[in-house]
């Protein structure tokens, strides 16, 4: 490597360190969520997610106190085969184990020269023995959290175990019907889709017409109407919640999908019109002039020229609106609430009602994140373009 090259690389080193460090910090919390969602629930509360690849709990203590005689797999002494679940069943708790350790075997102290483990160590060894013998099956990674989250399982073990033993709670059937459990993320996922898809399409459609009018039609008050639109864009959503939910109560739209579609459409419109009109308005004027000269109507110009040429703007808009509606909690909380729970609603309920259930929470949160992440990474270009158009290009 020549010196000049090396010097430049060295000069850039702080840049790399800071930037990579920041990226690492940014990724870490999400990584924790992802890892935790795949761990058995017992592990989640026993060790931190960063310890997921460590040897199982108690392995070190087993090595220290037991492995010399019983062997690494526990089957070195045929009379005391620790890989036999029936034997371990008798010593599965730390106090029964301790009792066994202090007993004499064949006239010799059980532990021989090795000092006795203390209470904590014995507990860890017992945990390890349960796992070693297969008495307790606990894989390093599991999909159970996702299954439990999807069907809305709220028990103390997991859905599959309960169903296998036929002791599931009253609202679970252990068949396909559980996918529709109103407490489950499966049902919420469907509801989120039902809310989001029309709430993305409607405002874009309505906005396209309005944007065309603002771009290529002349009518009195065009300028100030558009200026008003720009201002209205940042009126807080909170302002509309009370009157609209009162209005909805009168016409029976509270807790219905059309109600929330219309609300998202109404509130998405100013920004949608703003963005679409900026793009549509910057299309070459000659194109429209020649079309009109040839006798094209506005309808033809709109459907044949304006819409096809505005597709990039519409794409970024669609992504924005999709992410906004999908990730929204407030509007869903107010207009749908528990009658038609969406993903964000369901998770916020899980957070408050079930403080410590990290295995369920992380799985549920990840279920809600998959689709927006996919949309984001697939259409990142459009997303960023829309962002820039909305905030600097104007």
């Amino acid at each position: 490597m020549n010196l000049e090259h090396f010097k430049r690389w060295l000069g850039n080193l702080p840049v790399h360190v800071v930037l990579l460090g920041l990226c690492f910090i940014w990724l870490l919390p999400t990584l924790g969520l992802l890892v935790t969602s795949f761990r058995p629930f017992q592990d989640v509360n026993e060790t931190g997610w960063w310890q997921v690849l460590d040897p199982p709990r108690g392995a070190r203590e087993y090595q220290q106190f037991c492995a010399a005689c019983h062997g690494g797999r526990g089957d070195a002494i045929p009379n005391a085969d620790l890989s036999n679940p029936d034997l371990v069943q008798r010593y599965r708790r730390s106090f029964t184990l301790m009792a066994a350790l202090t007993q004499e075997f064949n006239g010799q102290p059980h532990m021989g020269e090795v000092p006795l483990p203390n209470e904590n160590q014995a507990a860890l060894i017992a945990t390890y023995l349960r796992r070693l013998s297969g008495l307790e099956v606990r894989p390093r990674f599991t999909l159970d959290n996702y299954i439990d989250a999807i069907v809305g399982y709220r028990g103390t073990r997991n859905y599959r175990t309960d169903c296998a033993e036929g002791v599931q709670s009253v609202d679970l059937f252990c068949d396909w019907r559980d996918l529709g459990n109103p407490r489950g993320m499966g049902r919420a996922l469907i509801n989120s889709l039902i809310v989001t898809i029309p709430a993305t399409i409607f405002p874009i459609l309505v906005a396209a017409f309005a944007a065309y009018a603002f771009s290529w039609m002349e009518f009195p008050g065009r300028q100030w109407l558009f200026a008003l639109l720009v201002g209205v864009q940042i009126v807080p959503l909170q302002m509309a919640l009370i009157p609209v939910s009162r209005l909805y109560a009168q016409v029976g739209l509270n807790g219905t999908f059309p109600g929330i579609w219309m609300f998202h459409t109404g509130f998405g419109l100013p920004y949608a019109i703003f963005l679409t009109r900026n793009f549509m308005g910057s299309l070459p004027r000659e194109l429209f002039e020649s079309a009109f000269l040839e006798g094209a109507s506005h309808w033809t110009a709109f459907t044949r020229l304006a819409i096809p040429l505005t597709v990039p703007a519409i794409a970024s808009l669609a992504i924005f609106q999709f992410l906004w509606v999908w990730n929204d909690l407030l509007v869903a909380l107010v207009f749908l609430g528990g009658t038609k729970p969406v993903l964000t609603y369901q998770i916020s309920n899980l957070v408050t009602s079930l403080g410590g259930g990290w295995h369920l929470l992380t799985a549920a949160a990840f279920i809600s994140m998959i689709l927006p992440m996919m949309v984001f990474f697939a259409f990142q270009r459009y997303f960023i373009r829309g962002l820039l158009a909305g905030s600097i290009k104007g």
Partner: protein
Amino acid sequence: MAKEAAYVPNILRQGRWVPWLYLGPALILMSIFILYPGLNTLYLSFRNQNGSDWAYTTCLAGQPCWGIFENYRYALTSSIMRTAFGNNLKWILFMVSGTVLLGLLIATLADRVRYEALAKAIIFMPMAISFVGAGVIWKFVYDYGSSQVQIGLLNALITSLGGRPVSWLTEPQINTLALIVVGIWMWTGFCMTVLSAAIKGVPAELLEAARVDGANEWTVFWQIRVPLILPTIAVVITTMIINVLKIFDIVYVMTGGNYGTEVIANRLYIEMYTSYNTGRAAAIAMVLTVIIIPAIIFNIRRFRAQEAMR
């Protein structure tokens, strides 16, 4: 606009009512969902808890009373709202400066490396996640185990360094900052993207010229880059202030506004759906709107200026 005037007759051939046909659906929907609610909220803010009578009827004898503005007395002077204002101010101070400075730093650094796109995607990714999802992610980071095992990353880090674990979300003063960190994590990507585009717009010759004159990177950054992208920075700051004033989900999910973390938008929600007091909720909504109005004016001005440049 002169060019447009010559062009009008063609358009008029289509009839005067056609534009309104195209605009109609949008205008109707916006009237129902933005215009009417705005006026109705204003009206409700002067009414009692369920809108059945004027607000002064809720005054209690011997207590201070603002008459018809009674709800505003609550929205402006009650202790919980004062906490909310204080917290929103903290949010603005720390989150806006945090996101803008970090965004600027990352945009500048990323400009100099080959893995720029990847680094930016990583920083930007939280924008795709809901506040609720982010709330779960960070609640886990902040988890406080009273027992020996700390499964929250932050407390595990502290205890492994010999410190004592902190209950991040219930400890007064610390908890609002802990929530703001979540906000920064989510919104830095936005600031970075917008500022990055502006940085790339700065002519390379200008920077080269300064470097040839012997200016170091630090001077180039503060004396040339920053002044040139100042308009963009202003826009980003305004947008962030608006976003921060409306902050709701993070607080709702992570602390519910308890332990002194209340913010305006969360209070509004609680007044409306926990206390069922539409009058107070409406007054809070009005206060929130009035605070945001300067930003609205700023945005309209900016829009006008850009229209003039076209």
